[in-house]
């Protein structure tokens, strides 16, 4: 556990580590015998092809994430991945906007380049800025924190901070709660800045077969697992997903 309710899980998965691109995810199979559970999808937080390792940054929310948080060293888990499309290449001067646990894919994205880039990391309060600072200690990355109660960093929300910074941005990459992504969308659209968001929805197959994880987009329902999880921000329709 890295913070209350959050853990970082590292796994030896050389093939996934070698193939993974930022924004992609992995299905973790639960195989719990007579009480089976669906596989759990997690964004890749970190991939190290040299060491053949990947890691997840997991918010413990239910029985599946609790099982993973209790995983012991040297246990074997079944993984399927990397899955999904991932983020496009990040241009110089990009802005990354993370809300809470939505930091996970953006850390992998931030680590994928040494170009100048700024990360806005927001949460309701300091205790919910749970990502270890060592993971954000990346060459050339500047991190600005925002908390709604002002307990750490700027007082306000991540989109409020984005509103100040977006004029200097070449592109925006974001992941977090729906309400935050909707605000990111309106800022990107009104400033004419290209943006990409990583969205989540409950999944079953994780590979595009069951069409259970769709979201509403300007191009109809699209599968988060196969057509996403990264979508151009202007494409996603947020209003009915509250």
């Amino acid at each position: 556990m890295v913070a209350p309710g959050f853990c970082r899980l590292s796994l030896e998965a050389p093939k996934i580590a070698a193939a993974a691109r930022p924004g992609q995810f992995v299905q973790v199979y639960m195989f719990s015998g007579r009480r089976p559970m669906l596989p759990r999808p997690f964004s890749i937080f970190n991939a190290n092809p040299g060491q053949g390792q990947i890691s997840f940054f997991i918010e413990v929310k239910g029985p599946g994430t609790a099982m993973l948080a209790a995983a012991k060293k040297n246990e074997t888990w079944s993984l399927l991945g990397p899955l999904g499309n991932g983020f496009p290449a990040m241009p110089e001067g990009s802005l990354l906007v993370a809300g809470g646990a939505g930091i996970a894919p953006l850390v992998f994205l931030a680590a994928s380049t040494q170009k100048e880039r700024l990360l806005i990391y927001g949460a309701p309060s300091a205790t919910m800025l749970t990502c270890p600072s060592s993971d954000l200690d990346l060459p050339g990355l500047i991190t600005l924190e925002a908390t709604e109660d002002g307990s750490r960093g700027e007082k306000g929300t991540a989109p409020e901070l984005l509103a100040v910074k977006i004029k200097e941005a070449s592109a925006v990459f974001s992941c977090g709660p729906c309400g935050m992504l909707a605000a990111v969308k309106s800022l990107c659209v009104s400033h004419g800045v290209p943006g990409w968001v990583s969205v989540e929805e409950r999944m079953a197959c994780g590979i595009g077969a069951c069409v259970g994880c769709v979201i509403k987009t300007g191009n109809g329902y699209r599968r988060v697992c196969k057509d996403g999880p990264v979508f151009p921000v202007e494409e996603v329709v947020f209003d009915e997903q509250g």
Partner: protein
Amino acid sequence: MNRADLNNHGDLNLQVDLAGIKLKTPVLLASGPAGYGHEYRELLDFRTLGAIIVKGISLEPWTGNLPPRLAETSCGLLNAVGLQNPGVEYFLKEDLPALRNSGTKVIVNVVGCSPDEYAAVTSRLDGKEGIDGLEINISCPNVKAGGMAFGTDPKATAKLVEKVRRETELPLVIKLTPNVTDISTVARAAETAGADGLSLINTLAGMLIDTENQKPLLGNTFGGLSGPAVMPVALKMVWQAAAAVRIPVLGMGGINSADDALQFIMAGARAVAIGTGLFYNPGLPVEINKGLAGYLHDKGYNSLAEVEGVARRQKGAD
């Protein structure tokens, strides 16, 4: 299990004839979870399957339901995908060619809003190379009759099956809904109207409420429950349907192990299909084949037919 493992019990016969469709193994993929097969072919050798029953096909494309479409329950899955599908023309052009070479039999699930639509889809699929049979999903709401599902009324079931029957010579399997008072009368109605086989159960109607947001969890409010939670309900209905008809029964509903599959066969099913279990474990069909072959071997049987309905005979139910 790889083919070498299958050959360990090579003297054993897992082949079955389901409504005139010769199946290499008694394990099928149920309609829905695996879509049109493209994605799962990377995870699963389709040659280990008796058949894939592809996701429901309508005449025109259906957009499906508003998300969220999925919610996990205790030992189950609630879904309201809403039969999203690209329509029969797209299916014939884009999906069927790949399925022809997938190494397994192909059964196409047919959906519709009216008997005319079912008939039109059936007629379009009839005679197409690579289609081995049709499964008619009669759980769809009958729009002209106030939205009640065809399959909840024996008369509506009979009319629909008769109409579809006239459109094709293909083996016709009717998929029954469990949301009825008496499965036997619907089963008999389908048989009398010309069905070659029955498959059951479809999902059980259900819902969940998100207490944080104080609204139904699914975008569609109601959904269908599947997974191990429904298995005993499904097993009982397969037992009852098998008692009511002479045509073969394809059993499904929460099958998640070889022992589950065996229970359906002992209840009178000719073969079994898995759906939600595939999500839990894409290797499940292989595991079930292996478990069935192992059971037959250990008990000294030569074929699955010797076990079909055996529990019924024990109870003097036949």
